[in-house]
């Protein structure tokens, strides 16, 4: 099994979000029979474990790696160490200062701006928002929050605070409960990680406040999409991880074959994020189903 070139896609943590990327990788595998494609979750979502995982992959003979790092800014040396041995690409979050070949993914800041756009459209009279996120310090959270803040500036909308939950669903839910109990003046909520909007949905449902509070979501959890369809959520901003997996694998394969045309000069391949609202949610969901099923 060692004779085919091996390509690996390493993600930052286990989550449904990556199921789509995995589907993309699977699709690419069908089209790249001469390669062995791997999709790897680290045991835990820490940069240290990811970097150790990459070391092991290189030791085990992997020929090219695409990584979604939990902490790209500070993994530059590890990236350079890997990049010295095999071609390395980043996805999801970038480390432009490293010797990675290219970044393939979306811009979290832009996604945050799009989310802010949803808020401004939904609350013309302004409002007071509370954000919910897994890791407050993670790059994607920081960028999304900054983007959101930038977009709502001057619109009378304020993001009062963001509560972290360390990806503990029970805490994610009770954070929303507590905010509902402690801050009656909140008129809007933003769920920055994929599981946050469903928790917001459930908490609002339990409190009987569905629809009374404007909710802006990220990602494509089924509950989120359902709520958007029902009009209970103002909208959600989705990335396109399927393309990251699919395009990423083709990119790496081509690169190994010597075709470097896929890599732009600035090294950035941006797959745009989309705003999903009641108007386009059905089409989007159909596409999702088809990708995951196939």
């Amino acid at each position, binding site marked *: 099994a060692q004779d085919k070139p091996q390509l690996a896609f390493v993600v930052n*943590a*286990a*989550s*449904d979000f*990556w*199921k789509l990327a995995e589907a993309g990788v699977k699709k690419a595998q069908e089209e790249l029979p001469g390669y062995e494609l791997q999709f790897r*979750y680290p045991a*835990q979502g820490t940069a240290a474990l990811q970097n150790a995982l990459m070391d092991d992959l290189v030791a085990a003979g992997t020929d090219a790696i695409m990584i979604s790092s939990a902490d790209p800014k500070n993994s530059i040396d590890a990236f350079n160490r890997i990049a010295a041995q095999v071609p390395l690409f980043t996805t999801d979050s970038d480390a432009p200062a490293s010797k990675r070949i290219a970044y393939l993914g979306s811009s979290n800041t832009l996604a945050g701006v799009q989310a802010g756009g949803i808020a401004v459209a939904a609350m013309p009279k302004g409002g007071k928002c509370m954000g919910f996120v897994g890791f*407050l310090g993670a790059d994607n959270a920081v960028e999304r929050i900054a983007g959101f803040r930038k977009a709502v500036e001057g619109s009378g909308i304020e993001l009062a*605070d963001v*509560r*972290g*939950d360390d*990806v*503990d*669903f*029970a*805490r*994610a*839910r*009770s*954070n929303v*409960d*507590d*905010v*509902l*109990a*402690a801050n009656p003046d909140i008129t809007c909520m933003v769920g920055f990680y994929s*599981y946050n909007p*469903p*928790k917001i949905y*459930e908490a609002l449902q*339990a*409190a009987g406040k569905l629809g009374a509070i404007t909710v802006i979501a990220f990602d494509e959890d*089924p*509950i989120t*999409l*359902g709520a958007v369809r029902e009009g209970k959520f103002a909208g959600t901003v989705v990335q396109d991880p399927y393309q990251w997996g699919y395009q990423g694998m083709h990119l790496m394969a081509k690169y190994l074959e010597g075709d470097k045309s896929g890599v732009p000069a600035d090294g950035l391949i941006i797959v745009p994020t989309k705003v999903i609202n009641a108007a386009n949610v059905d089409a989007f969901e159909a596409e999702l189903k088809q990708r995951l099923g196939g």
Partner: protein
Amino acid sequence: MHKKDLGLAVLIIIVGAVVYLRNPLFLSPINLGNTANLIGLFGLFAIGQGFVIMTGGIDLSVGSMIALLGVIFVDMVGKFGVPWPVAILVVIAIGTLLGLAHGFLITKLKMQPFVVTLCGLLIYRGVARGYTGEATAGFPFGANYPGLEWLTIGRSFGIPHSFYAMIFIGVVCWLLLHRSVFGRHLQAVGKNEDAARYSGIRTGFVITAAYVICAVLTAVAAVYFAMFTRSVQPSSHGNFYELYAIAAAVLGGFSLRGGEGSIIGVVLGVVLLQELQNLVNLLGIPSSLNFAVMGVVILFGVLADQQFNRYRAKRKAANALGLLTKKGSTRREAPAATDEIR
């Protein structure tokens, strides 16, 4: 109520009063209801952990078991359409089997509880992650299970049913641990297993039963948790919960050496931990300081309680001396009689 429990109750009330003064919404029915729900959820498996700690053992697999059983439950009900009462029975049956396995490895094959349940921690979560392929197990959007929802996340008189469940199970467990023959045997086994065996107690059975009780209560908690979060992410669901349960038990007066502790104590321990969680959100303390606040309050709370008890013992000894000698010229202070050796 033991004196130890009383100290903890006082601590809970003091912390509550401070929070209330800073944000009166602390005592609002909504907030109390939410907190009661969490107390119910965590209380369920913390009580179970208490039984295991009573034997001088430990169950580190609790959090992983909640993840595994949660995944199984959600998939059975949400994906395969198994009627929910059947699904609950299946989950409890699996819990029983896991508890039996723990007990068997510990009592028959003489493995250390720490090792056995550490392997459980690793294996159960691993199986859950492998089974779902890292995907989140959730109910389809809009799916409705009125009976199940009434039972798990419903409320009566504003109080969540999870809290009722915990109270009911707490009372049963209190009778079991403090008033039944089995409970007495459990306490004896925890203090001195050899001596208990010499007294004709079936120590193997008693220890195994403790692990089964723990696993069954954990299974029940797993159902409640799954319904609370409505989706189970196998890699993070229930992470660290074993530490929670152990902390609640230890705060509540259980000794990790076995043989000591009370059900009321562990429930109060859970109440304190949840109060501290709640406080952070209510007072708008940055989430990053969540744990620091918890740690500081626990540290000083336990310390104050202990120092107060020592002081009281000292006073008592001094009084005894004063009364008896009628001289009042004690050169050195009488030492505390009830000092625990670490």
